[in-house]
């Protein structure tokens, strides 16, 4: 939902007190809880699930979650500003089709086609960003529209046909391992490069501080000198460009450019980001949690598949995990309120949380 409009519930405000020592603050975060959960699941899977610790399992795990990991990077920043981008999977599909059509019909080499596809992805993101940041439209509605639009263009260009004629050199690259026989596919290299870039951007640059400020209160951010519109615009451009990158990977990995590639991927990415501790209200979250959240989804899927469960049961577990992880904050707040006997303190006299947040784009 458009998050900037929702009132912030009690539970979302459990910021660690800064009077506590650093190690205790770190232990109380959602990110830490997810990392611990990931380690527990990993430990269980490697010891109790047959074949889970084989290099091949890990290799396919990384191949499968690579597009989610990639797109989760910019999506984290978009959601921290209190916006959302539902059109990313459609951009994946569109860039996949662009690579296919440019290679087959225009005879471009793969790198040239990929470069143009990334440009197209950036333009898709720029269109979202323009409508959200400068026209002031709600991002949920805009990106539902462009979800249909970009997917529509992708499907319209190729229909139900697929481009499958790609040089083996490039399709092999998508599946190649960094070191022969290891469990790490080549696709992790661009991901790690982007991860370093995004960690720096979100957590160590003034741009990143602006992103958090916008999510907490965009008017206040404006008055402290953050260019709210430009920041949001660039985040959507980044989301589009990175989605296109994922689209190129998709095309090469499966050796097939289709309009309906990565259908429904947007919800998986958002699930990974929210599971990683990013607040849908904006203003809170960190990339280490998101990476752990995405890997957690991958590990659970892979381990459950090895144990003979179907995709359906895996979906139930991931959905339940998502619901439980967001409910836990409210639940813990409720527990601590009960323990300290402050239940009655929620009197209507105090200002509602979220007061002062802009409820509609002016």
């Amino acid at each position: 939902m458009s998050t900037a409009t929702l009132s912030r519930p009690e539970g979302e405000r459990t910021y660690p007190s800064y009077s506590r020592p650093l190690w205790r603050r770190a232990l109380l975060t959602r990110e830490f809880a997810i990392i611990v959960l990931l380690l527990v699941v990993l430990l269980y899977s490697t010891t109790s699930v047959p074949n889970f610790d084989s290099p091949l399992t890990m290799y396919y795990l990384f191949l499968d979650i690579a597009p989610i990991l990639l797109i989760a990077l910019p999506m984290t920043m978009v959601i921290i500003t209190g916006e959302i981008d539902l059109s990313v999977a459609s951009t994946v599909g569109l860039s996949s089709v662009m690579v296919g059509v440019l290679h087959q019909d225009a005879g471009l080499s793969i790198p040239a086609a990929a470069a143009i596809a990334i440009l197209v992805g950036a333009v898709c993101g720029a269109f979202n960003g323009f409508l959200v940041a400068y026209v002031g439209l709600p991002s949920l509605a805009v990106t539902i529209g462009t979800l249909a639009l970009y997917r529509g263009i992708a499907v319209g260009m190729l229909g139900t046909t697929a481009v499958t004629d790609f040089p083996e050199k490039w399709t092999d690259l998508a599946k190649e391992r960094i070191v022969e026989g290891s469990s790490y596919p080549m696709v992790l290299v661009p991901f790690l490069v982007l991860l370093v870039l995004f960690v720096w951007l979100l957590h160590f640059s003034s741009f990143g501080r602006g992103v958090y400020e916008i999510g907490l209160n965009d008017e206040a951010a404006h008055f402290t000198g953050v260019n709210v519109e430009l920041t949001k615009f660039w985040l959507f451009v980044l989301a589009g460009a990175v989605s296109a990158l994922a689209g190129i990977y998709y095309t090469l990995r499966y050796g097939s450019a289709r309009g309906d590639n990565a259908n429904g991927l947007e919800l998986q990415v958002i699930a990974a980001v929210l599971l990683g501790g990013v607040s849908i209200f904006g203003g809170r979250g960190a990339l280490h949690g998101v990476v752990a959240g995405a890997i957690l989804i991958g590990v659970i899927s892979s381990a459950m598949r090895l144990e003979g469960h179907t995709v359906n049961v895996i979906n139930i577990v991931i959905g339940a995990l998502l619901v439980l992880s967001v409910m836990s904050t409210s639940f813990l707040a409720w527990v601590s309120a009960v323990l300290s006997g402050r239940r009655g303190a929620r009197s209507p006299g105090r200002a509602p949380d979220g007061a002062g947040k802009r409820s509609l784009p002016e």
Partner: protein
Amino acid sequence: MSDTLLVEPSAQPRSRRLLGTLLRSREIAVAAVLLLLILGTTLKSGDFIFSSDGWRNLLVTPSLLLLLAVGQTVVIVTRNVDLSVGSILGLTAYFTGRMFIDNPGIPIVVVFALGMLLGAVLGLINGALVAFGKVPALVITLGTLYIYRGVFLSWAGSDRINASDMPRDFLALGTKTILTIPVLTIIALVVLAAVGYYLHTARGGRELYAIGSDPDAAKLYGLPVTRRVLVAFVISGALAGLAGVVYAARYGTVSSGAGLNIELQAVGAAVIGGVAIFGGSGTVWGAALGAFLLITINRALPIVGISDFWQRAVVGVLIIAAIVLDRVLTIRQERRLVAARDEVRTSA
């Protein structure tokens, strides 16, 4: 300009007031686009409405999305969203088939009631998680979208419901017409009228708008916010359940793909029909017209010579055009009101 603004509405002649209301109405605009589309397509090919199949399809195909869009409107008006409706649809569609297989001779009315009940229970789960957990509906219903579909698919396993599993009378509902109007469309229109009446007139319905306009104010004012939000989700779930039963009757088969990705179409239909995603405004009539428009475009495109692969692109353009239009109208209205206020101040 300010004169016309400052005239009491009731001081204007009745006909002029009515005309003004109609011209400003978003529903009329969408209806006009829909009529033009139908007219244009019919001119190209008379079969579009004048063949018996064409007329029936024109009315019956949108019924399913109409039910979902109506339910979605009730939820969006409260400043929430329900992404799980596609999964509820799939689950109840399979449940419908299962009922006929497991209880031969079960009355059709009972199946309709139980399908809606199952949907309502699933909606209640959504509503309870949202209302008591104080967690945004987007996250909760994204989670239950996975959970409900997972339950549906694990329950169904590898078997699917085929037309032969369901009684002929039930399947006949998908084709039966009364006065050339398909029964399924009549069901959808009755639901539309009932929910529309509730939202427009009943106290509970009006309070949904109040909650969506400003949840904090609604709470401070003493409205039963938790209960109303629960009711909104129950309505949305029950209608998705009804849509599931209708799906089974219309298509005769239920496979794993039933209702997949339809949730975003339902939200899209509401947005096209003028339901503000920020809550507090919009009508089910608009959402229903939006649903009709979405489905009709799909069928009209091949007739006017555009491959129907482009349908989703057209839908996307429509959604974006609709929200841009909303924005433009809001800004114009704001400017006029500010101008009128300033005029009063300077003349005073």
